[in-house]
């Protein structure tokens, strides 16, 4: 029967080419659409993955009354230092790193300053980007980002003034484009906390205690991220709804607990592609293909009416003919599928050579939104090679879908085959 089916396909290749091409096109669309969806999700996770952390905690705050001295960005309001110890005790948490990120407005300049513990995971990561000099040995030392140092002509051991306090450049680091939370200057956490504590402008906006921080990185078991996130939400009590709102509409005082999933859902809207969209498109493609294949197959079956009449006359039962048609349809499906997979591989290979640019949401941007002189920095854009790849498991699902589609076609046409009566066909043909 397979030999007969193959011969039939070979002899009527022009007739079946349409079906095969439709199936191939469906496979290309389904596989490529899915790979695009997965790749966009993957791409949206890349900036987060660069942080090398499972969970990031921030808190919404108030907008400073004026731009002078050290202030915290409104998406990075102070978090009580006591929480750090409690977070560390949550089951599933492997390590807690934290820092204090400040905007420092001096008379003639603006600086982003990040206070770090050089011994924790975050500190070590920034330290590993040191290209010149050494890590801060005292609270008066600072690391300077290379681009910032070049822009302001800062060199090793040079003195600089930061909100009324003198600092010495102890080293140069190159962090731009490597982390979401890159900064111009990196200082000891103590130094940053002192700057914040003594800032009148900050204290008027937010109450800042000497051991407060404003960003916490939690590294947890990958399998327990959801669980840990839930416990963090319980620990960091949500504020009442009567609280004010930040310029981006978030509730003042509320904690933002970012995970790769939350980050992904926040950022993936930028790509205008979502699971629902892919599902709808896939369904449209499948239903369209089903209609085209049924129409084409019906036409072919009508043309072969006499052939089926002969087959019935010599002893084929309806089920024998259905089996024959099923084999032919499945063969077309498999050939179309193979062509589709081959074309998908080519398309995915080509797409993998392209890049994708991801704009980091404002809430996670370390640059003041109101500094319009360099708007590109407000939503820093990071560029990555498009992480698209062939999804083998999904391609198996597509094969199953195509086979189901083929069997559905046969079942729709089965009524026609069952209704054929040998003598009636042969009498009138």
């Amino acid at each position, binding site marked *: *029967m397979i030999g007969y089916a193959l*011969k039939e396909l070979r002899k009527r290749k022009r007739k079946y080419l349409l079906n095969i091409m439709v199936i191939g096109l469906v496979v290309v669309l389904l596989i490529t659409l899915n790979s695009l969806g997965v790749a966009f999700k993957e791409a949206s996770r890349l900036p987060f993955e660069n942080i090398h952390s499972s969970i990031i905690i921030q808190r919404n705050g108030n907008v400073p009354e004026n731009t002078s001295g050290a202030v915290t960005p409104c998406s990075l309001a102070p978090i009580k230092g006591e929480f750090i110890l409690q977070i560390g005790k949550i089951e599933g948490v492997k390590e807690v790193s934290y820092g204090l990120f400040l905007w420092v407005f001096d008379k003639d300049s603006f600086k982003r300053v990040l206070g770090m513990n050089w011994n924790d995971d975050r500190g070590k990561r920034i330290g590993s980007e040191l290209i010149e000099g050494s890590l801060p040995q005292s609270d008066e030392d600072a690391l300077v980002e290379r681009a910032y140092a070049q822009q302001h002509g800062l060199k090793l051991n040079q003195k600089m003034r930061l909100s009324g306090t003198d600092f010495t450049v102890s080293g140069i680091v190159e962090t731009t484009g490597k982390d979401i939370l890159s900064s111009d200057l990196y200082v000891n956490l103590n130094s940053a906390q002192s700057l914040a504590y003594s800032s009148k402008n900050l204290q008027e906006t937010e109450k800042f205690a000497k051991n407060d921080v404003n960003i916490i990185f939690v590294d947890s078991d990958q399998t327990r991220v959801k669980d840990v996130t839930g416990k963090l939400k319980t620990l960091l009590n949500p504020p009442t709804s009567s609280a004010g709102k930040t310029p981006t509409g978030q509730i003042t005082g509320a904690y933002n607990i970012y995970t790769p999933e939350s980050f992904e859902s926040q950022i993936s809207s930028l790509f205008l592609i979502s699971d629902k969209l892919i599902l709808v498109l896939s369904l449209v493609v499948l239903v369209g293909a089903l209609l085209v294949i049924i129409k084409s197959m019906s036409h072919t079956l009508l043309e072969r009416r006499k052939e089926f009449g*002969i087959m*019935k*006359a*010599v*002893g*084929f039962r309806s089920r*024998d003919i259905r089996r024959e048609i099923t084999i032919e349809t499945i063969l077309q499906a498999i050939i179309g599928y193979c062509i589709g997979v081959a074309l998908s591989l080519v398309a995915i290979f080509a797409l993998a050579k392209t890049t994708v640019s991801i704009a980091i949401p404002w809430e996670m941007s370390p640059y003041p939104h109101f500094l319009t002189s360099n708007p590109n920095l407000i939503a820093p854009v990071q560029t990555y090679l498009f992480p698209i790849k062939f999804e083998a498991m999904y391609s198996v699902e597509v094969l199953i879908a195509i086979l189901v589609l083929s069997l559905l076609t046969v079942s729709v046409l089965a009524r026609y085959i069952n209704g054929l*009566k040998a003598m009636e066909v042969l009498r009138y043909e």
Partner: protein
Amino acid sequence: MNEIIIARNLSKTLGSVKAINAVSLDVKEGDFLVIQGSSGSGKTTLLSLLSGLDKADAGEIKFGGEDITSMNEDDLALFRRKNVGIVFQSYNLIPTLNVLENIALPLFPEGSSKEKMFERAKAAAESVGLSHRLNHYPNELSGGEQQRVGLARALINNPKVIFADEPTGNLDTETGQKMMNLFKSLNKQKGLTIVMVTHDDGLAKEADRLIKIKDGVVTNE
């Protein structure tokens, strides 16, 4: 000889025409029976009822003791595959299959191996003198050759009865006579029962038994 077919009071209406009207007849094993009638007399319809290709509206047909009038379409198809061979006036070969495959067609649903099927098909082709044309397609054959393919296909399942509907109708006189000789030799040498429909008086005379039919009624035997 035993009766292989016993038909009683067969009736069949096609559209508004009573094609067969209360026909009864018996066919014995080894018979060479010719049903003769003019065009539209109902001879082909009668043949299709006797061979199980079509179902009678009324009456009963017992084939080898089995009532085929009560069978459904699929059972009838199986019955045809196992018991009868049918030769058509217009050959009814499948154009995308070669001679060997056309002859082997009735064996396809049985699921036996390709080698076994083709071995039997080759033997059937040899019995009708077509061994040299096995790989040719129907459009590469003459009318006589195509009809011999049809006969070989009818023979492949060792049927109890061969039904032939105007098998020489599309052939010239000489080729038609050769075809008729082939039927006769199958009947005489192998004892095969043959029921043939024709309107040709010359061919009708060569049969052992002749039934004439007019307006769906058997007029004489």
